[in-house]
């Protein structure tokens, strides 16, 4: 009997704009100059916020957090492809997505500042809170997607995670469930090539993350994750497919974490300065700026104006964050259940009376 080949596959990689900012007109997504300016402003603002958060952390005004430096195009480009009624199920490295989803950014500062009230998002945000256990949240996107489909809503779900997350079993279960149920889910892997100190090659022996889609029966595409046009284009197509009932897609945004893993990490311990320099030359923000300058959409005055506006916004958010009244101890007992149990009521009472006793010096 002859051996037959059952499956063979290729994985497309989409690039629209090269590091010099030159675009392939045939692949350029349908974006108005206004939209391109909005994307640029969002990236600038995200970077300024990220920088400012680093300073706040160093000054002890917020706690440990995960920076997004270098990954602005990947998560902002993908989030921009969503409509208001769509859902976002993030990990923890998606600061720009907060801006696009209309979450007041002072909330993000409050959350990273160690105050859980920062996760109390405006009603109807359709964005889940930050999820710290790596690789476990994508199943929730599948469940939400299933519900949207069952409701006959045309909303889709974007879930974002890292390359490290693809090693967790839950990632594989989520991919499988999404494909089996044809859930309208877009899996966006921000492959920044590192999971703390573990490089991509140690995470998987597969040449791409995108090809993992093949095994589950869904399309898998790699995009240049530092090219916001490519990320937007590919995500938008996946969103449309999902909206039309054509099921899930896995997108690998090939990018780079230009910062330390978090503010507690020191990446110099495990990667070279040369590698970082290589990627700094491929900075996603500078790349978009180059395109816009050449297209006559950005001159020095406009650049300065965007920067100034971003600075002002960030300053306002920091002010709003610092003006928030401190959390009260009762907050610990709120939202454990819809109704506090008798034990919780008693324990809260116990805490408050011990604090009173302490005030009275007992």
């Amino acid at each position: 009997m002859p051996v037959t080949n059952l499956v063979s596959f290729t994985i497309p990689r989409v690039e629209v704009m090269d590091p010099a900012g030159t675009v392939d007109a045939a692949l350029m997504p349908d974006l108005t100059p206004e939209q391109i300016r909005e994307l640029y402003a969002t990236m600038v603002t995200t970077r300024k916020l990220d920088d400012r958060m680093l300073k706040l952390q160093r000054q002890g005004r917020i706690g440990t957090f995960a920076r997004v430096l270098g990954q602005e195009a990947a998560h902002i480009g993908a989030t921009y492809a969503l409509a208001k009624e769509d859902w976002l199920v993030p990990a923890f490295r998606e600061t720009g997505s907060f801006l696009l989803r209309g979450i007041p950014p002072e909330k993000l500062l409050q959350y990273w500042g160690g105050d859980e009230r920062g996760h109390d998002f405006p009603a109807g945000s359709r964005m889940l809170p930050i999820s710290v256990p790596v690789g476990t949240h994508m199943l929730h996107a599948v469940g939400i997607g299933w519900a949207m489909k069952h409701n006959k809503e045309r909303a889709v779900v974007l879930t974002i995670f890292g390359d490290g997350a693809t090693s967790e079993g839950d990632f594989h279960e989520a991919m499988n469930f999404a494909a089996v149920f044809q859930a309208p889910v877009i899996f966006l892997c921000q492959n920044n090539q590192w999971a703390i100190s573990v490089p991509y090659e140690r995470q998987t022996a597969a040449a791409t993350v995108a090809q993992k889609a093949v095994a589950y029966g869904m399309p898998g595409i790699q995009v240049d994750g530092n090219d916001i046009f490519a990320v937007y284009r590919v995500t938008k197509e996946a969103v449309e497919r999902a909206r039309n009932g054509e099921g899930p897609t896995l997108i690998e945004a090939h990018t780079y974490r230009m910062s330390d893993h978090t503010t507690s990490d020191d990446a110099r311990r495990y990667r070279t300065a040369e590698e970082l320099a290589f990627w700094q030359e491929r900075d996603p923000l500078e790349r978009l700026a180059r395109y816009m300058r050449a297209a006559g959409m950005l001159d020095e005055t406009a650049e300065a104006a965007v920067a100034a506006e971003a600075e002002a916004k960030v300053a306002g958010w920091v002010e709003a964050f610092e003006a928030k009244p401190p959390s009260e101890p009762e907050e610990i007992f709120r939202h454990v259940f819809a109704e506090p149990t008798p034990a919780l009521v008693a324990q809260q009472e116990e805490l408050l009376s011990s604090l009173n006793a302490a005030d009275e010096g007992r």
Partner: protein
Amino acid sequence: MANLNLVEAVREALRQEMEHDPKVIVLGEDVGRNGGVFRVTEGLFQQFGPDRVVDTPLAESGIVGMAIGMAIAGYRPVAEIQFSGFVYPAYDQLVSHASRMRNRSRGGYTVPMVVRMPYGGGIRALEHHSESMEAVFVHVPGLKVVIPSDPYDAKGLLTAAIRDPDPVIFCEPDRIYRAVRMEVPEESYTLPLGEAKVVREGFDLTLISWGAHVRTAKQAADHLAEEGVYDVEVIDVRTLSPFDINTVAASVVKTGRAVVVQEAPRTGGFASEIATQLMERAILQLEAPVGRVTGFDTIPPLGRLEDYYHPDVRGVMRQIRATMEF
């Protein structure tokens, strides 16, 4: 003697066991080149190489499941879970396999494995980095559970855990990783798993704790002694499973009163087990109900409210007074 903190003591135990037994393998996320996020395994990768200090993909079930297989095949894996809050993907492997392989194979296959994890709160960390969930391991027959409270114990207990023929969960209170230094023997030594330690003698009340709160307990006892009110005996449980009820009960028979300090949520915690066993062993000597100072039955709060959640010296003193005045 060497003057070590808890991180260094754990590292010394790992290094000496790796030197002593070529079958000892360290594996986990970021344990190799990076030396672990708390730097516990720093230098081991350089000394022993990538085949014995193994950076794994990011998958706790993978780490523990593979360690089980390595142990079955004759190795002594010491797996690191980056924070105890991320062990749950591996809980299935621990409960369904590590704890029962010996039993299932009627002694034919065994799992001499250690799973180390930073544990507990007090470092203003992110969500999932502050939990004290030791009870979920203690409740699993076939797992041993060790929680050291100082560098000396950490080294001796970890060495014993690595040499132990059965799976051991080794919880390292990260709050005290660098809080204290003490003289620790340079040579290798073991401390028995299953022996509590009286860390302060006293006659009025027995104060029982483990991990980071042994310090809290000692401080409370010292305050009360300075004030000249009560003379409190403090016991460090050290290994929750197997639990040394004999030492604890002997103390309570002497003092007639007991208070347990645990950081974990109150309901279903190990303090409840201690109270029950004391009731069984010393009901006639107990002059008051066994008191508890615990975390609340809530999600541990993020940094801003963390101090309200954890047992503190003042709260322990208050409970001691209440138990004494009962």
